[in-house]
């Protein structure tokens, strides 16, 4: 069914997430699609990107000649410094995260539950690689946005009544941007609300492709 809906591309999803960044924010972008968010930050706002391996103020990828093995992000990619950049230890870096000093994190997900539970660290049937910094990020960052496909490759809804996979955190998700729709909630006591539909997506289609209970307030 989702195959018949045009939906949003990965870049469009990233651009939608970028619209949630406000001037002066400190933000942490996860590996994968969330990394693309950096390409869509509005030119008139000032954002500082944090990487949990101890770098604050991430610059773009370097020219080949400027590659420095000692300048990497949490995805272990070579990057560059900016005039604002500072380095710190991993303990201090997670002090920022756990202490609520990072305003926003954008992460991928395998499942999100209607109560905001998130599962994104154990791939079913695969070797467990470990949570990395994902559990710390969802527990510490003030606002968590999930970017994910609306359904899994075999068509199973990923926004569910409850997660079937091992959790990364309980009641931690504030916003879901899928390739078909945007769900949001004003606080972590409230249910999610369907806010936006991707091109071709209808209320009925989203209802059919979503297991979670949610409200509707389309603008």
């Amino acid at each position: 069914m989702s195959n018949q809906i045009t939906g949003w591309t990965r870049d469009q999803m990233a651009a939608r997430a970028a619209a949630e960044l406000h001037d002066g924010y400190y933000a942490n972008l996860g590996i994968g699609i969330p990394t693309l968010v950096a390409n869509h930050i509005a030119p008139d706002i000032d954002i500082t990107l944090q990487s949990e391996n101890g770098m604050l103020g991430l610059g773009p990828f370097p020219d080949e000649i400027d590659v420095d093995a000692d300048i990497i992000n949490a995805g272990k990619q070579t990057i560059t410094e900016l005039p604002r950049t500072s380095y710190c230890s991993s303990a201090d870096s997670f002090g920022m995260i756990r202490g609520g000093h990072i305003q926003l994190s954008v992460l991928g997900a395998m499942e999100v539950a209607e109560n905001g539970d998130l599962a994104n660290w154990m791939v079913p049937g695969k070797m467990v690689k470990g949570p990395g910094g994902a559990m710390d990020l969802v527990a510490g960052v003030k606002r968590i946005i999930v970017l994910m496909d609306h359904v899994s490759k075999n068509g199973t809804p990923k926004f569910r009544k409850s997660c079937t996979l091992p959790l990364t955190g309980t009641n931690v998700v504030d916003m879901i941007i899928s390739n078909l729709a945007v769900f949001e909630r004003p606080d972590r006591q409230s249910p999610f609300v369907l806010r936006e539909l991707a091109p071709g997506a209808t209320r009925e289609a989203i209802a059919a492709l979503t297991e979670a209970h949610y409200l509707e307030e389309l603008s």
Partner: protein
Amino acid sequence: MASKIYPDAASALDGLLFNGMSIAAGGFGLCGIPETLIDALVAAGTKDITAVSNNAGVDDFGLGKLLDRRQIRKMISSYVGENKEFERQFLAGELEIEFSPQGTLAERMRAGGAGIPGFYTRTGVGTALAEGKPTMDFEGETFVLERGIVTDIAIVKAWKADPFGNLMFRKSARNFNPMVATCGRITIAEAEEIVSPGELEPDLIHTPSVFVQRVILATCNEKRIEKMTVSDRETLS
């Protein structure tokens, strides 16, 4: 002045190694890892090591070299996803793994080094990694107790060291190294450069000398890059 500088990695590890020991190692991925000391551990052949390190290296680099020789019995890490031999040994039941969320792991090493046996964190509450651990509520929210880590030895990679054992790290190669340096009963640092007494500005030292017992000049500084990304690719993406 009693210099802490040793002639090489083997002499710096001399008398400290035993089968079944615990070793904390600095580094994130392949960045800021004590390459020289890892090679010396391979040469020493110490067995049944409990290794505390954020990652497990790759198959032929970093702690992967120790895994390859089956010198490690247990890893305490946050992410071990880049190592095939690790996966094989784990699935065969030859290797034990204790996962700690990355920030929790960093804090556990800092806590161990700072004489704090336990602290409460929101991280991991309600997940498999908090199972069986005590919890406490603070202002209506549940936190889990995580334990400080102290190891028999700690090995770190520094950028600059002086003969007193003061260290500076370079850029994101700092990562876990400062906490690792505090949590070893004996800490050995390998430095890309050893400078003269007084050359390190007192305000700019990352790890004060008190935490470092032995220093060597690093002879392995390959600094392998795990994921080379350059601006051309970025433009194409």
